[in-house]
């Protein structure tokens, strides 16, 4: 089954600015995370999303807080696009008790169930079946909720994707599978590890639409996701979107990134979706320089406050090392935040 993107769909000014704002928030948040990581005060591993912002922003602009997403080890962007609080996110990344997961998860396991954000996931492909299940829950309950699985080109070769796409197709689940193909699974090129040039073409095996989307154009992502979300809400089943994108940074913070060419990195940076969106907003008269500069300053300030909040927050109490292994009685769950 083939599908096309409705390129003629008009995107109003409010939506265009909101898309830009989300992308910019992700960019500035991630730059700051990267900077803070170099201070040594962030424990563990951090994988930043810089360069891929258009995917999370364009897809999540079609969702509300009742819809579900599952994410990846590179999950900060999905959290921000789904509306997570920057301070609580930053505190989680710093391993503090005020974090979204009270410091038990960290960068690779941020979740906010109150916003349908069912978790970043450090198992490659780990969130795909979970998103399928959230879509099943919506289907059984008969709600209009949809569920989005974000995953990378590496996860596209996991068997669980096959099982999940088949399951979602036979049950016509309200699910959208968003493959963020940034060309590399850690250091292994998708061109080497994947049997077909377009992962979206695998959708044909399940009789569902598969759409290749240019991740350098946030409006294209938005429109493609809009069609997929409408299909899902309308009871017409799942869609596989493959967004061609590029991570500007290494796989993890500190990655020497010897497996990619400088020229490729340069070319990708020249096709930066964030910069393109900014240019378009100005060129079409939807925003002027002064407004965009003010917006940037506002977000920088918000990110700075998030870092202050994180740094001034307490670490979890070592006496609570076994707390939350099992769910607590409802009366106390969620009370500590």
């Amino acid at each position, binding site marked *: 089954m083939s599908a096309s993107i409705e390129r003629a769909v008009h995107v109003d000014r409010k939506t265009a600015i909101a898309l830009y704002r989300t992308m910019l928030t992700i960019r500035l948040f991630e730059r700051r995370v990267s900077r803070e990581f170099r201070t040594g005060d962030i424990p563990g591993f951090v994988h930043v999303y810089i360069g891929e912002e258009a995917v999370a922003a364009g897809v999540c602009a079609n969702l509300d807080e009742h819809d*579900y997403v*599952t994410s990846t080890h590179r999950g900060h962007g999905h959290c921000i696009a789904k509306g997570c609080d920057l301070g609580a996110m930053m505190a989680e990344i710093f391993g503090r008790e005020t*974090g*979204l*997961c*009270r*410091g*038990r*998860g960290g960068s690779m*396991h941020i*979740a*906010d*169930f*109150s916003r349908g954000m*069912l*978790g970043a*996931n450090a*198992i490659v492909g*780990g969130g*795909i*079946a*979970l*998103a*399928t*299940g*959230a*879509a*099943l*829950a*919506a*289907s*059984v*309950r008969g709600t209009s909720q949809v*569920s989005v699985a974000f995953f990378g080109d590496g996860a596209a070769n996991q*068997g*669980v994707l*096959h*099982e*999940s796409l*088949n*399951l979602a197709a*036979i*049950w016509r689940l309200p699910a959208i599978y968003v493959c963020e193909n940034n060309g590399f699974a850690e250091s292994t090129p998708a061109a080497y590890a994947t049997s077909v040039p377009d992962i979206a073409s695998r959708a044909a095996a399940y009789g569902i639409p598969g759409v290749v989307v240019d991740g350098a154009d946030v409006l294209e992502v938005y429109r493609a996701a809009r069609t997929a979300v409408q299909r899902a809400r309308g009871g017409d089943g799942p869609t596989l979107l493959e967004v061609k994108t590029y991570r500007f940074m290494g796989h993890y913070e500190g990655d020497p990134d010897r497996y990619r060419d400088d020229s490729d990195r340069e070319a990708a940076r020249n096709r930066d979706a964030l910069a393109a969106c900014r240019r378009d907003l100005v060129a079409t008269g939807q925003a002027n320089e002064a407004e965009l500069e003010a917006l940037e300053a506002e977000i920088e300030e918000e990110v700075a406050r998030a870092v202050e909040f994180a740094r001034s927050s307490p670490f979890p109490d070592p006496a609570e090392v076994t*707390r*939350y*292994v*099992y*769910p*607590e009685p*409802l009366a106390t*769950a*969620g009370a500590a935040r």
Partner: protein
Amino acid sequence: MSAVLERQLSLVDAVGEALRQAMEADPSVIVMGEDVAGGAGRGAGKENAMGGSFGATKSLYPLFGASRVRDTPISEAGFVGAAVGAAAAGLRPVVDAMWADFTGLAFDQIYNQAAKMSYMFGGQARLPLTIRMAMGSGLSAAAQHSGTLYAIYTHLPGLKVVAPSTPYDAKGLLLEAIFDDGPVLVFEHMKLYVTKGPVPAEPYRVPLGVAEVRRAGGDVTVVAIAAMVDRALEAAEVLAEEGIDVEVVDPRTLSPLDEESIVASVEKTGALVVVDESPPRCSLASEIAAVVSERAFDFLNAPVRRVTAPHAPVPFAPALEAAYAPSVTAVVEAVRSLG
């Protein structure tokens, strides 16, 4: 016992009754798995042809329909993972995994996703998921349809594990598992499916983590799991004729383990034999022996004895299989060896 308690039900029918009552009580309870109805989409007369490999789910499809009684493709990672996600999104799925040995295909979904979700996410995830599976030797089902595996899952924080030995407990533990807000794995011994026992008709719960003393005795504590409980009770009768008074403790829940009841029994008897139909390394038998060694060492009059399967997969040929699981004789001899 009241007249109601006298109603006899097989273990498999007790399981089916628990599922039906849970689904009646709560519309968020769904049942999913391979062939839980059977003949999906084939129309009246062919649908619900199976009702599960052992018929446990047979009564559900006509009552609750295809949305809540879902036949799945043979794709354990996919549908167990979907059940985890559905639980995270507020359903109470009960997965029929068929055989414990099949859960290897879904291990990541159970171990990395379901088990860790509450902890990793700081308590915000509630995961009311139940996974039922058949296990155990005795039907010549061979190596890939007989493993117990409960020790593997008992090892994993975030999971609870139950292994009933009676129809009464099978129903009560399953209802408790379904309404628990975390993931619970239910191991149903294949040999016990046809055994009958008293089962009240109304819904009731058996709390998790509470052992049951099946036979009171003063000389030796025998802790036995699932199908081994009946063998321990038989052994106790043999030993009673020799003047050895055996206390048989059935943990019923393996995680969390009711350490208090086991320790209290050993403090009374001064001796422990554990009967576990699993290979011995890192087994429940080992765990129970370790708990007693730590907590009741001063009460022990003899070394703890483990009576287990050998360190081998479950064999096919009946002659070999009979040599695999602990026999009544093996239990009797282990108790006698304590002196």
